[in-house]
């Protein structure tokens, strides 16, 4: 017995198959050999396994003799840290409540120059850049506004045109509010439209002091940690 499916059903099946293929399958095909960017190559403010971002600044010794205010002015690393304290959390002006932390971003620089660029973007002195020339040596700026939980990066995976940053919140019980940021080197070999996915993993507790503290809700996490975004690496002009 021959069964003939209606044309609309066939079209829907084709659409669904195409959708599946055009998302992860295609990405997977392009990223057949995704690589891990080791945390030991990441410059960050107090994240285990990373390099201390304060070591990026030349002549770090001089900062050891400065007071808090001077440190905030003279040290780019400290100033950037300070820019993420809860006073700077974006507000939802219409509702008068906290807004979301905003999208992560990429800067066309590495090392201390990347820190400078990221600082300017955080301050609002420079717009987030969404397009870059091929061959640019790029750095991803990951950030989290201050909260009573640590933010830890677990893993950074890089494909040809996809970056995944996995992080988690860690509750600790010390009465501190900490903000965090990381400069993740992306290299100069990205091409086309690049999707950066900021992916939250399960919360941890570095001490059992807050063992009954509920995990942050999705909304709370969005208010604290930068979100996924896209950028484009344009081919060189003909």
């Amino acid at each position, binding site marked *: 017995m021959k069964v003939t499916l209606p044309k609309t059903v066939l079209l829907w099946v084709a659409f669904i198959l195409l959708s599946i293929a055009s998302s992860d399958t295609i990405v997977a095909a392009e990223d057949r050999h995704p690589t891990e960017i080791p945390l030991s190559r990441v410059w960050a403010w107090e994240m285990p396994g990373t390099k201390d971002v304060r070591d990026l600044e030349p002549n770090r010794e001089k*900062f050891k003799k400065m007071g808090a205010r001077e440190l*905030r002015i003279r040290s780019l690393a400290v100033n950037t840290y300070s820019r993420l304290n809860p006073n700077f959390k974006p507000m939802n002006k219409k509702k008068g409540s906290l807004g979301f932390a905003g999208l992560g971003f990429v800067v066309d620089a590495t090392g201390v120059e990347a820190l400078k660029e990221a600082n300017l973007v955080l301050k609002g002195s420079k717009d987030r850049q969404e397009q870059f020339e091929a061959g640019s040596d790029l750095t991803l700026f990951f950030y989290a506004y201050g909260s009573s939980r640590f933010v830890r990066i677990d893993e950074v995976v890089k494909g040809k045109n996809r970056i995944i940053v996995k992080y988690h919140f860690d509750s600790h019980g*010390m*009465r*501190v509010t900490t903000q965090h940021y990381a400069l993740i080197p992306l290299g100069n070999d990205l091409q086309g439209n690049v999707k950066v996915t900021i992916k939250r993993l399960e919360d941890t507790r570095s001490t059992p002091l807050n063992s009954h503290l509920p995990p942050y809700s999705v909304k709370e996490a969005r208010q604290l940690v930068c979100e996924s975004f896209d950028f484009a690496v344009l081919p060189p002009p003909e």
Partner: protein
Amino acid sequence: MRCSLTFVFLSVLCLPALGDSTTRGFLGANAAATGLDGSGVVIGMVEPGRPGDPDKDLPANYHSQVNPVQVYSGTSIDGANSQFTQGGNGQHAIEVAGVMIASNNPAGSITGISPKAQLHAGAWTGFDDVSRAVASDRIARISNMRAINVSAGRTPQGLDAPDATSIWSRFIDWSTEAQDVLYVVAGGEGFNTGIPEDNFNGLTVAASQEFNQGIGSFRQTWSGNESAFDPAGARVAIDILAPGFEILVPGRGDNTSIQNGTSFAAPHVTGTVALLQQYAETQANPPNSNPGFTSRNHREPEVMKAILLNSADKLSGVHGSSRDVVRGDGSNWTATAANNSSFVPLDEDMGAGHLNANSALTNLRPGEQSPGMVPRIGWDFENIGAGSFLDYTFDRQVSGHVAVTLAWNRIVDKTGSSTGYNFGDQFINQNIDMELNDLNLYLMAANENNINNAIASSTATEDSVEHIFSDVPSGNYKIRVQHTDFLGDDQDFGLAW
């Protein structure tokens, strides 16, 4: 005008040379103005880690300017480079210790509130209330221990609530009374709230930040979370504000950083206790032998608590206040329930106000007084019988703002030794009403005997603090302390005015 501009310019230039203004300075605890450094005073701290000790640990684990007298893990002296010096816990401990005792020897950018105080730092070895209590007890038993800093806390678990009935909170209230040591506890940070900042007998500290720089307006850091700070009942958890925003702190390996949180507010208060004790002991000892201090009652935690709260800044220029302190909504003390209701002694957002070490010293200086005729400023440690009252009559006419603060201890009983807490000891789980006497405080005309005609009163029923801050016309006044529990026990109290 030229002079003012020059001053401002020079002030900015001199900031590094002055040390960190947000800690010891005018915009911080106002501790530098006391001219004291905590010499000879023994203080402690206890938390999950302990600061690296330059006398035994590797440089990667300590900061050269932070040198505790001794370090412990649980009830033992800790070994070199132990797990307690490592990672976030070790880092946090150095930061907290630095706010108290960072010294300028060797020279550096950080000077603590009481750089010459003798700090004993303990780490607890287990993450349960009993382990925390045992580790705290080890520190509290050290001879002449005056104050212990606790810059950590936990959320309520299971059936327990932030109502001062957990083992940890009961321990703090028991130890305060039994071991005569003031616990200075960091208030909840962000959404963390609960234990042990729900204690009655210690001092719970919230973090302040200056939000109107140069004008000197302060409020609680991240204000807006204040509702989370209220323990069960009508009592508010926060007793006082202290600097806790972008505080310069030392770190492991001689690093420095800026940090935020009540973890750094609390040691400002603990360090201030060291300054006050240094002054008082100097007065008590020969050659001074000042009779206002020879009773050694300045060592009583109720006295320290009463003086620190009484001298807290509220309104700039008023009652020695060096700054304006406001709630999250911008309103000042005059708009608070604490100001407008006799049943609420402290404000949920600012406690009694902002720590001012120099004002606290001013309050301490006249020495201990007794009921009867008293000077305009003073303090007393006294015992009052159930159902009775004591009057303190000013020896002169008084006008303007009068602050009066009364503090007493909740009495917690336990099994086992009366002088120490050990594994296996059990706190006797009584209703708090059975552990807490009700004392009230009145400001009255000197010739008045009816408390219903008091000019101002503080008559909370669920707290161990009463506080009056009242603007009075010129006249003759007296302070009355009344013990309203006619069937209760005698009660020791500290009073400051």
